[in-house]
Protein backbone atom coordinates (compact mmCIF):
# COMPACT_ATOMS: atom_id res chain seq x y z
CA UNK A 1 0.00 0.00 0.00
CA UNK A 2 1.27 3.48 -0.86
CA UNK A 3 0.09 6.75 0.64
CA UNK A 4 -2.20 9.18 -1.15
CA UNK A 5 -1.72 12.93 -1.17
CA UNK A 6 -4.69 13.20 1.17
CA UNK A 7 -3.27 10.72 3.66
CA UNK A 8 0.10 12.39 3.57
CA UNK A 9 -1.47 15.77 4.19
CA UNK A 10 -3.53 14.41 7.11
CA UNK A 11 -0.44 12.78 8.55
CA UNK A 12 1.66 15.94 8.41
CA UNK A 13 -1.12 18.15 9.77
CA UNK A 14 -1.59 15.78 12.68
CA UNK A 15 2.18 15.89 13.27
CA UNK A 16 2.02 19.65 13.14
CA UNK A 17 -0.70 19.75 15.81
CA UNK A 18 1.32 17.55 18.09
CA UNK A 19 4.37 19.77 17.68
CA UNK A 20 2.37 22.89 18.53
CA UNK A 21 0.84 21.15 21.56
CA UNK A 22 4.26 20.09 22.81
CA UNK A 23 6.30 23.13 21.81
CA UNK A 24 7.16 24.09 25.36
CA UNK A 25 7.95 20.51 26.35
CA UNK A 26 10.33 20.07 23.42
CA UNK A 27 12.13 23.27 24.29
CA UNK A 28 12.37 22.20 27.90
CA UNK A 29 13.95 18.91 26.84
CA UNK A 30 16.41 20.81 24.63
CA UNK A 31 17.17 23.13 27.51
CA UNK A 32 18.59 20.27 29.53
CA UNK A 33 21.13 19.12 26.97
CA UNK A 34 21.04 21.74 24.24
CA UNK A 35 20.04 25.33 23.79
CA UNK A 36 16.35 25.17 24.56
CA UNK A 37 14.96 25.97 21.14
CA UNK A 38 13.88 22.66 19.63
CA UNK A 39 10.21 23.40 20.35
CA UNK A 40 10.30 26.82 18.73
CA UNK A 41 12.39 25.58 15.81
CA UNK A 42 9.98 22.75 15.08
CA UNK A 43 6.90 24.86 15.59
CA UNK A 44 8.24 27.48 13.16
CA UNK A 45 8.88 24.65 10.75
CA UNK A 46 5.52 22.91 10.89
CA UNK A 47 3.70 26.24 10.61
CA UNK A 48 5.47 26.67 7.29
CA UNK A 49 4.64 23.07 6.37
CA UNK A 50 0.94 23.65 7.05
CA UNK A 51 0.91 26.69 4.78
CA UNK A 52 2.82 24.85 2.05
CA UNK A 53 0.67 21.72 1.87
CA UNK A 54 -2.82 23.21 2.10
CA UNK A 55 -2.61 23.78 -1.65
CA UNK A 56 -5.30 21.33 -2.79
CA UNK A 57 -3.82 21.07 -6.28
CA UNK A 58 -0.99 18.91 -4.97
CA UNK A 59 -2.01 15.59 -6.42
CA UNK A 60 0.61 13.14 -5.37
CA UNK A 61 1.92 12.20 -1.95
CA UNK A 62 5.36 13.08 -3.25
CA UNK A 63 4.24 16.63 -4.08
CA UNK A 64 3.00 17.11 -0.54
CA UNK A 65 6.15 15.64 0.95
CA UNK A 66 8.43 17.73 -1.25
CA UNK A 67 6.62 20.92 -0.24
CA UNK A 68 6.98 19.93 3.40
CA UNK A 69 10.67 19.28 2.92
CA UNK A 70 11.26 22.67 1.35
CA UNK A 71 9.29 24.37 4.12
CA UNK A 72 11.43 22.71 6.80
CA UNK A 73 14.63 23.49 5.00
CA UNK A 74 13.85 27.13 4.39
CA UNK A 75 12.16 28.04 7.65
CA UNK A 76 14.06 26.04 10.23
CA UNK A 77 17.65 26.77 10.90
CA UNK A 78 19.28 24.84 13.70
CA UNK A 79 20.18 21.20 13.27
CA UNK A 80 16.62 19.94 13.01
CA UNK A 81 15.73 21.98 9.90
CA UNK A 82 18.08 20.35 7.41
CA UNK A 83 17.63 16.94 9.07
CA UNK A 84 13.84 16.85 8.82
CA UNK A 85 14.26 18.51 5.43
CA UNK A 86 16.53 15.71 4.17
CA UNK A 87 14.27 13.06 5.63
CA UNK A 88 11.18 14.48 3.93
CA UNK A 89 13.03 14.97 0.65
CA UNK A 90 14.27 11.38 0.54
CA UNK A 91 10.81 10.18 1.50
CA UNK A 92 9.29 12.22 -1.33
CA UNK A 93 11.45 10.35 -3.81
CA UNK A 94 9.86 6.97 -3.00
CA UNK A 95 6.52 7.72 -1.34
CA UNK A 96 4.44 7.33 -4.50
CA UNK A 97 5.76 3.87 -5.21
CA UNK A 98 6.93 2.18 -2.07
CA UNK A 99 5.31 0.85 1.05
CA UNK A 100 5.51 2.94 4.18
CA UNK A 101 8.33 0.91 5.76
CA UNK A 102 10.54 1.68 2.74
CA UNK A 103 9.48 5.33 2.81
CA UNK A 104 10.55 5.80 6.42
CA UNK A 105 13.74 3.85 5.73
CA UNK A 106 14.52 6.32 2.95
CA UNK A 107 13.94 9.19 5.39
CA UNK A 108 16.27 7.57 7.89
CA UNK A 109 18.94 7.27 5.22
CA UNK A 110 18.54 10.96 4.47
CA UNK A 111 19.05 11.85 8.12
CA UNK A 112 22.08 9.60 8.46
CA UNK A 113 23.64 10.91 5.28
CA UNK A 114 23.11 14.50 6.26
CA UNK A 115 23.98 14.23 9.97
CA UNK A 116 26.49 11.34 9.97
CA UNK A 117 24.87 9.96 13.11
CA UNK A 118 24.54 6.26 13.88
CA UNK A 119 22.27 4.38 16.21
CA UNK A 120 23.03 5.10 19.90
CA UNK A 121 24.50 8.54 19.20
CA UNK A 122 21.43 9.92 21.05
CA UNK A 123 19.77 11.66 18.14
CA UNK A 124 16.55 11.36 16.19
CA UNK A 125 18.18 8.39 14.46
CA UNK A 126 17.40 6.47 17.65
CA UNK A 127 13.72 7.02 16.97
CA UNK A 128 13.72 6.48 13.20
CA UNK A 129 15.79 3.28 13.17
CA UNK A 130 13.62 1.23 15.57
CA UNK A 131 10.52 2.54 13.81
CA UNK A 132 11.84 1.26 10.48
CA UNK A 133 12.49 -2.13 12.07
CA UNK A 134 9.03 -2.26 13.60
CA UNK A 135 7.37 -1.26 10.35
CA UNK A 136 9.26 -3.93 8.48
CA UNK A 137 7.94 -6.47 10.98
CA UNK A 138 4.45 -4.98 10.78
CA UNK A 139 4.38 -4.28 14.50
CA UNK A 140 4.68 -0.51 14.86
CA UNK A 141 2.69 0.64 17.88
CA UNK A 142 2.53 3.57 20.28
CA UNK A 143 4.21 1.32 22.82
CA UNK A 144 7.12 0.59 20.48
CA UNK A 145 7.52 4.31 19.83
CA UNK A 146 7.42 5.15 23.53
CA UNK A 147 9.93 2.39 24.16
CA UNK A 148 12.34 3.80 21.56
CA UNK A 149 11.94 7.26 23.04
CA UNK A 150 12.77 6.02 26.54
CA UNK A 151 15.83 4.24 25.17
CA UNK A 152 17.45 7.58 24.31
CA UNK A 153 17.61 8.56 27.98
CA UNK A 154 20.63 6.56 29.17
CA UNK A 155 22.66 7.29 26.03
CA UNK A 156 25.63 9.65 25.90
CA UNK A 157 25.27 12.07 22.98
CA UNK A 158 27.86 11.72 20.23
CA UNK A 159 26.35 14.01 17.64
CA UNK A 160 24.64 17.39 17.69
CA UNK A 161 24.85 20.08 20.28
CA UNK A 162 24.24 17.69 23.17
CA UNK A 163 27.48 15.86 22.37
CA UNK A 164 29.37 18.89 23.71
CA UNK A 165 28.03 18.02 27.14
CA UNK A 166 29.66 14.63 27.17
CA UNK A 167 28.75 12.75 30.41
CA UNK A 168 26.21 15.41 31.30
CA UNK A 169 24.02 14.44 28.36
CA UNK A 170 23.23 11.13 30.04
CA UNK A 171 19.86 10.78 31.75
CA UNK A 172 17.84 13.05 29.46
CA UNK A 173 15.55 12.24 26.53
CA UNK A 174 16.80 13.41 23.15
CA UNK A 175 14.55 16.27 21.98
CA UNK A 176 14.81 15.33 18.29
CA UNK A 177 13.85 11.75 19.06
CA UNK A 178 10.82 13.01 20.93
CA UNK A 179 9.69 15.33 18.11
CA UNK A 180 10.15 12.42 15.70
CA UNK A 181 8.02 10.23 17.95
CA UNK A 182 5.11 12.59 17.26
CA UNK A 183 5.64 12.08 13.54
CA UNK A 184 5.19 8.35 13.96
CA UNK A 185 2.30 8.53 16.42
CA UNK A 186 0.60 10.82 13.91
CA UNK A 187 1.29 8.22 11.22
CA UNK A 188 -0.34 5.52 13.32
CA UNK A 189 -3.37 7.72 13.92
CA UNK A 190 -3.89 8.62 10.26
CA UNK A 191 -2.84 5.51 8.33
CA UNK A 192 -3.26 1.79 8.75
CA UNK A 193 0.44 0.97 8.55
CA UNK A 194 0.64 -2.56 9.84
CA UNK A 195 -1.41 -4.27 7.20
Amino acid sequence: MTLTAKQTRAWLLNFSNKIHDNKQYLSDLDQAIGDGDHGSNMSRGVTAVEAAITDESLEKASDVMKKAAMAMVSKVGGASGPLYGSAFLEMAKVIDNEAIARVIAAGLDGIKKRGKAEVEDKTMVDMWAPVVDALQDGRLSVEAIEEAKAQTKPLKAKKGRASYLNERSIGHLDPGAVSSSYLFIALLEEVEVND
Partner: protein
Amino acid sequence: MKKIINQPSTLMMEMLNGIVMAHPELELLRKHKVIKRKQLDTDKVTLISGGGSGHEPAHAGFVGKGMLDAAVCGEVFASPSQIQVYQAIRETASTKGTLLIIKNYSGDVMNFKNAAHLAEEDGRKVDYVRVEDDIAVEDSLYTVGRRGVAGTVLVHKAAGAAAEEGRSLEEVKRIAQKAADNVRSIGIALTSCTVPAKGSPTFQLAEDEMEYGVGIHGEPGIRREKVLSAGALAKRMTTDVLKDLQITEGSEAELVVLINGFGGTPLQELYAFNHEVAKELSKRHLNVNRSFVGNFMTSIDMAGVSLSILKLDDELKTLISRESDAPAFKVSG
Protein backbone atom coordinates in the same frame (compact mmCIF):
# COMPACT_ATOMS: atom_id res chain seq x y z
CA MET B 1 11.65 37.84 32.04
CA LYS B 2 12.63 41.50 31.94
CA LYS B 3 13.53 42.76 28.54
CA ILE B 4 13.03 45.93 26.57
CA ILE B 5 11.09 44.32 23.75
CA ASN B 6 7.71 44.26 22.07
CA GLN B 7 7.30 40.52 21.59
CA PRO B 8 9.89 37.82 20.96
CA SER B 9 8.58 37.07 17.48
CA THR B 10 9.28 40.57 16.11
CA LEU B 11 12.48 41.27 18.05
CA MET B 12 14.88 40.00 15.46
CA MET B 13 13.52 42.00 12.56
CA GLU B 14 13.34 45.13 14.73
CA MET B 15 16.92 44.57 15.73
CA LEU B 16 18.10 44.17 12.14
CA ASN B 17 16.31 47.38 11.22
CA GLY B 18 17.91 49.13 14.18
CA ILE B 19 21.34 47.95 13.08
CA VAL B 20 21.16 49.35 9.57
CA MET B 21 19.73 52.61 10.90
CA ALA B 22 22.73 53.04 13.17
CA HIS B 23 25.16 51.96 10.46
CA PRO B 24 24.07 53.42 7.14
CA GLU B 25 27.07 51.84 5.42
CA LEU B 26 25.24 48.52 5.89
CA GLU B 27 22.18 47.29 4.04
CA LEU B 28 19.53 44.82 5.12
CA LEU B 29 18.11 42.34 2.65
CA ARG B 30 14.85 42.00 4.56
CA LYS B 31 13.51 38.94 2.85
CA HIS B 32 16.55 36.82 3.65
CA LYS B 33 17.70 38.52 6.85
CA VAL B 34 21.10 39.25 5.41
CA ILE B 35 23.13 42.28 6.43
CA LYS B 36 25.66 43.26 3.78
CA ARG B 37 27.98 46.11 2.94
CA LYS B 38 26.24 48.68 0.78
CA GLN B 39 29.35 49.12 -1.35
CA LEU B 40 30.65 45.75 -2.38
CA ASP B 41 33.99 45.30 -4.07
CA THR B 42 33.20 42.69 -6.71
CA ASP B 43 36.87 42.20 -7.32
CA LYS B 44 37.74 40.69 -3.98
CA VAL B 45 36.78 37.40 -2.37
CA THR B 46 33.42 37.75 -0.65
CA LEU B 47 33.43 36.76 3.02
CA ILE B 48 30.19 35.58 4.57
CA SER B 49 29.54 34.43 8.10
CA GLY B 50 26.49 34.26 10.27
CA GLY B 51 24.55 31.93 12.47
CA GLY B 52 21.84 32.28 15.04
CA SER B 53 20.99 35.64 16.51
CA GLY B 54 21.59 36.41 20.15
CA HIS B 55 25.33 36.84 19.73
CA GLU B 56 25.28 40.55 18.94
CA PRO B 57 27.39 42.33 17.78
CA ALA B 58 28.19 39.03 15.98
CA HIS B 59 27.90 38.78 13.13
CA ALA B 60 26.33 41.90 11.63
CA GLY B 61 28.71 44.10 13.61
CA PHE B 62 31.65 42.53 11.80
CA VAL B 63 30.45 43.48 8.34
CA GLY B 64 32.65 46.23 6.98
CA LYS B 65 35.94 47.08 5.42
CA GLY B 66 38.63 44.54 6.33
CA MET B 67 36.15 42.07 7.83
CA LEU B 68 33.00 40.45 6.40
CA ASP B 69 30.91 41.36 3.37
CA ALA B 70 27.71 39.85 4.69
CA ALA B 71 26.21 38.25 7.77
CA VAL B 72 23.29 35.82 7.47
CA CYS B 73 21.05 36.01 10.51
CA GLY B 74 19.09 33.07 11.88
CA GLU B 75 16.52 33.22 14.64
CA VAL B 76 17.83 33.35 18.20
CA PHE B 77 20.31 30.47 18.55
CA ALA B 78 19.11 28.76 15.36
CA SER B 79 21.24 28.65 12.26
CA PRO B 80 19.88 30.52 9.26
CA SER B 81 18.28 28.26 6.67
CA GLN B 82 20.21 27.11 3.65
CA ILE B 83 18.00 29.28 1.48
CA GLN B 84 19.02 32.37 3.41
CA VAL B 85 22.70 31.53 3.06
CA TYR B 86 22.27 30.68 -0.60
CA GLN B 87 20.63 34.05 -1.25
CA ALA B 88 23.41 35.82 0.62
CA ILE B 89 25.96 34.13 -1.63
CA ARG B 90 24.04 35.19 -4.73
CA GLU B 91 23.53 38.78 -3.62
CA THR B 92 27.19 39.36 -2.82
CA ALA B 93 28.86 37.39 -5.59
CA SER B 94 32.29 38.55 -6.75
CA THR B 95 34.60 37.56 -9.56
CA LYS B 96 36.97 35.90 -7.08
CA GLY B 97 34.42 33.67 -5.36
CA THR B 98 32.98 33.40 -1.85
CA LEU B 99 34.32 32.03 1.42
CA LEU B 100 31.91 31.01 4.18
CA ILE B 101 33.19 31.15 7.74
CA ILE B 102 31.15 28.70 9.80
CA LYS B 103 31.07 28.19 13.53
CA ASN B 104 31.11 24.46 14.07
CA TYR B 105 27.56 23.59 15.10
CA SER B 106 25.68 20.85 13.25
CA GLY B 107 22.91 23.22 12.22
CA ASP B 108 25.22 25.92 10.93
CA VAL B 109 27.46 23.45 9.16
CA MET B 110 24.60 21.67 7.40
CA ASN B 111 22.84 24.84 6.32
CA PHE B 112 25.98 26.65 5.14
CA LYS B 113 27.33 23.59 3.35
CA ASN B 114 24.05 22.92 1.62
CA ALA B 115 23.91 26.53 0.55
CA ALA B 116 27.43 26.24 -0.85
CA HIS B 117 26.35 23.21 -2.89
CA LEU B 118 23.29 25.01 -4.19
CA ALA B 119 25.46 27.94 -5.25
CA GLU B 120 28.02 25.65 -6.85
CA GLU B 121 25.23 24.13 -8.91
CA ASP B 122 24.71 27.67 -10.23
CA GLY B 123 28.33 27.62 -11.30
CA ARG B 124 29.62 29.81 -8.49
CA LYS B 125 32.94 29.41 -6.73
CA VAL B 126 32.24 28.84 -3.06
CA ASP B 127 34.35 27.37 -0.31
CA TYR B 128 34.13 27.31 3.46
CA VAL B 129 36.14 27.09 6.67
CA ARG B 130 34.90 25.72 9.95
CA VAL B 131 35.99 27.33 13.21
CA GLU B 132 36.29 24.95 16.16
CA ASP B 133 38.07 26.93 18.84
CA ASP B 134 36.29 25.91 22.04
CA ILE B 135 38.58 23.71 24.11
CA ALA B 136 35.83 22.98 26.64
CA VAL B 137 34.81 20.20 24.31
CA GLU B 138 37.16 17.27 24.16
CA ASP B 139 38.38 16.59 20.70
CA SER B 140 37.55 13.02 19.90
CA LEU B 141 36.70 10.79 17.00
CA TYR B 142 33.23 10.32 18.37
CA THR B 143 32.08 13.90 18.51
CA VAL B 144 31.39 16.35 15.74
CA GLY B 145 34.50 18.27 16.68
CA ARG B 146 34.54 21.32 18.86
CA ARG B 147 32.25 24.30 19.01
CA GLY B 148 33.04 27.51 17.20
CA VAL B 149 32.91 30.47 19.58
CA ALA B 150 34.52 33.90 20.05
CA GLY B 151 37.76 32.97 18.31
CA THR B 152 35.74 33.16 15.09
CA VAL B 153 36.02 36.95 15.25
CA LEU B 154 39.78 36.74 14.83
CA VAL B 155 39.29 34.42 11.86
CA HIS B 156 37.04 37.09 10.32
CA LYS B 157 39.74 39.64 10.93
CA ALA B 158 42.61 37.69 9.38
CA ALA B 159 40.59 36.46 6.41
CA GLY B 160 39.03 39.90 5.96
CA ALA B 161 42.44 41.56 5.72
CA ALA B 162 43.63 38.93 3.23
CA ALA B 163 40.52 39.36 1.08
CA GLU B 164 40.91 43.13 1.16
CA GLU B 165 44.37 42.69 -0.38
CA GLY B 166 42.71 41.10 -3.38
CA ARG B 167 44.04 37.60 -2.78
CA SER B 168 42.51 34.53 -4.42
CA LEU B 169 39.85 32.36 -2.83
CA GLU B 170 42.44 29.65 -2.18
CA GLU B 171 44.71 32.12 -0.44
CA VAL B 172 41.97 33.65 1.67
CA LYS B 173 40.81 30.19 2.64
CA ARG B 174 44.37 29.23 3.60
CA ILE B 175 44.60 32.28 5.85
CA ALA B 176 41.19 31.66 7.43
CA GLN B 177 42.13 28.05 8.03
CA LYS B 178 45.46 29.03 9.53
CA ALA B 179 43.79 31.48 11.89
CA ALA B 180 41.19 28.86 12.80
CA ASP B 181 43.92 26.30 13.45
CA ASN B 182 45.75 28.66 15.77
CA VAL B 183 42.97 30.08 17.89
CA ARG B 184 41.53 28.49 21.02
CA SER B 185 38.91 29.66 23.49
CA ILE B 186 37.35 28.79 26.84
CA GLY B 187 34.36 30.44 28.52
CA ILE B 188 32.68 30.61 31.90
CA ALA B 189 29.26 31.82 32.96
CA LEU B 190 28.01 33.36 36.20
CA THR B 191 24.41 33.45 35.04
CA SER B 192 22.40 31.91 32.24
CA CYS B 193 21.00 33.84 29.32
CA THR B 194 17.26 34.19 28.87
CA VAL B 195 16.05 33.36 25.38
CA PRO B 196 13.22 35.83 24.61
CA ALA B 197 10.89 33.20 23.13
CA LYS B 198 11.32 31.07 26.23
CA GLY B 199 11.23 33.82 28.82
CA SER B 200 13.09 32.02 31.58
CA PRO B 201 16.80 31.37 32.14
CA THR B 202 18.15 28.30 30.33
CA PHE B 203 19.92 27.12 33.46
CA GLN B 204 20.04 28.11 37.11
CA LEU B 205 23.17 28.78 39.13
CA ALA B 206 23.42 29.42 42.84
CA GLU B 207 24.97 32.64 44.15
CA ASP B 208 28.36 30.97 44.59
CA GLU B 209 28.39 28.86 41.44
CA MET B 210 29.70 29.22 37.93
CA GLU B 211 29.75 26.99 34.87
CA TYR B 212 33.18 26.27 33.43
CA GLY B 213 33.37 25.58 29.72
CA VAL B 214 30.05 27.03 28.57
CA GLY B 215 29.00 27.52 25.00
CA ILE B 216 27.37 30.61 23.58
CA HIS B 217 23.79 29.33 23.39
CA GLY B 218 23.02 28.75 27.01
CA GLU B 219 24.27 25.17 26.79
CA PRO B 220 25.48 24.09 30.22
CA GLY B 221 29.24 24.04 30.68
CA ILE B 222 31.34 20.97 31.22
CA ARG B 223 31.49 21.45 34.98
CA ARG B 224 29.58 23.35 37.62
CA GLU B 225 31.94 24.80 40.23
CA LYS B 226 32.38 27.36 42.96
CA VAL B 227 33.04 30.87 41.67
CA LEU B 228 36.74 31.74 41.49
CA SER B 229 38.46 35.08 41.91
CA ALA B 230 39.41 36.91 38.71
CA GLY B 231 43.05 36.02 39.27
CA ALA B 232 42.45 32.31 39.84
CA LEU B 233 40.09 32.19 36.88
CA ALA B 234 42.57 33.93 34.60
CA LYS B 235 45.28 31.53 35.66
CA ARG B 236 43.20 28.47 34.99
CA MET B 237 41.73 29.64 31.69
CA THR B 238 45.08 30.86 30.40
CA THR B 239 46.76 27.61 31.37
CA ASP B 240 44.07 25.53 29.67
CA VAL B 241 44.16 27.54 26.45
CA LEU B 242 47.96 27.66 26.22
CA LYS B 243 48.18 23.94 26.84
CA ASP B 244 45.79 23.19 24.02
CA LEU B 245 47.73 25.51 21.71
CA GLN B 246 50.94 23.79 22.83
CA ILE B 247 52.51 27.09 23.73
CA THR B 248 55.14 26.64 26.39
CA GLU B 249 56.87 29.13 28.67
CA GLY B 250 59.11 31.56 26.86
CA SER B 251 57.79 30.66 23.41
CA GLU B 252 58.70 33.21 20.77
CA ALA B 253 55.31 33.40 19.09
CA GLU B 254 53.38 36.60 19.63
CA LEU B 255 49.80 36.25 20.81
CA VAL B 256 46.52 38.03 20.25
CA VAL B 257 44.25 37.99 23.28
CA LEU B 258 40.51 38.45 22.98
CA ILE B 259 38.57 38.95 26.20
CA ASN B 260 34.93 38.52 25.29
CA GLY B 261 31.99 39.44 27.50
CA PHE B 262 28.85 37.35 27.08
CA GLY B 263 26.53 40.34 27.30
CA GLY B 264 25.76 40.84 30.97
CA THR B 265 29.24 41.41 32.33
CA PRO B 266 30.30 45.05 32.73
CA LEU B 267 33.31 46.38 30.83
CA GLN B 268 34.82 47.16 34.23
CA GLU B 269 35.25 43.46 34.92
CA LEU B 270 36.36 42.63 31.38
CA TYR B 271 39.18 45.14 31.48
CA ALA B 272 40.26 44.02 34.94
CA PHE B 273 40.20 40.43 33.67
CA ASN B 274 42.39 41.47 30.75
CA HIS B 275 44.90 42.67 33.28
CA GLU B 276 44.87 39.32 35.09
CA VAL B 277 45.35 37.40 31.84
CA ALA B 278 48.21 39.69 30.84
CA LYS B 279 49.85 38.98 34.19
CA GLU B 280 49.57 35.25 33.59
CA LEU B 281 51.08 35.54 30.13
CA SER B 282 53.92 37.73 31.28
CA LYS B 283 54.70 35.28 34.10
CA ARG B 284 55.23 32.72 31.35
CA HIS B 285 57.40 35.16 29.36
CA LEU B 286 54.95 35.26 26.49
CA ASN B 287 54.44 38.27 24.26
CA VAL B 288 51.06 39.83 23.68
CA ASN B 289 50.88 41.57 20.34
CA ARG B 290 47.43 43.02 20.91
CA SER B 291 44.47 42.51 23.18
CA PHE B 292 40.84 43.13 22.30
CA VAL B 293 38.37 43.62 25.17
CA GLY B 294 34.61 43.90 24.86
CA ASN B 295 31.39 42.19 23.92
CA PHE B 296 32.08 40.43 20.62
CA MET B 297 30.29 37.07 20.67
CA THR B 298 27.61 37.29 23.31
CA SER B 299 25.00 34.92 24.58
CA ILE B 300 22.20 37.51 24.84
CA ASP B 301 22.37 38.70 28.46
CA MET B 302 24.53 36.00 30.03
CA ALA B 303 27.07 37.17 32.62
CA GLY B 304 30.43 35.62 31.96
CA VAL B 305 33.59 35.89 29.97
CA SER B 306 35.59 33.93 27.45
CA LEU B 307 39.27 34.03 26.71
CA SER B 308 40.54 33.43 23.18
CA ILE B 309 44.20 33.30 22.26
CA LEU B 310 45.47 33.38 18.69
CA LYS B 311 49.05 32.33 18.04
CA LEU B 312 50.58 34.54 15.38
CA ASP B 313 53.15 33.94 12.71
CA ASP B 314 54.47 36.84 10.65
CA GLU B 315 51.73 36.55 8.09
CA LEU B 316 48.87 36.54 10.62
CA LYS B 317 50.54 39.32 12.57
CA THR B 318 50.49 41.60 9.55
CA LEU B 319 46.90 40.77 8.70
CA ILE B 320 45.56 41.17 12.23
CA SER B 321 46.92 44.69 12.49
CA ARG B 322 45.56 45.87 9.14
CA GLU B 323 42.86 48.50 9.22
CA SER B 324 39.29 47.29 9.70
CA ASP B 325 36.18 49.40 9.82
CA ALA B 326 33.25 47.24 10.89
CA PRO B 327 30.84 48.70 13.47
CA ALA B 328 32.03 46.38 16.22
CA PHE B 329 35.62 45.86 15.16
CA LYS B 330 37.62 48.88 14.24
CA VAL B 331 41.36 48.60 14.02
CA SER B 332 43.23 51.74 13.04
CA GLY B 333 45.92 49.85 11.17
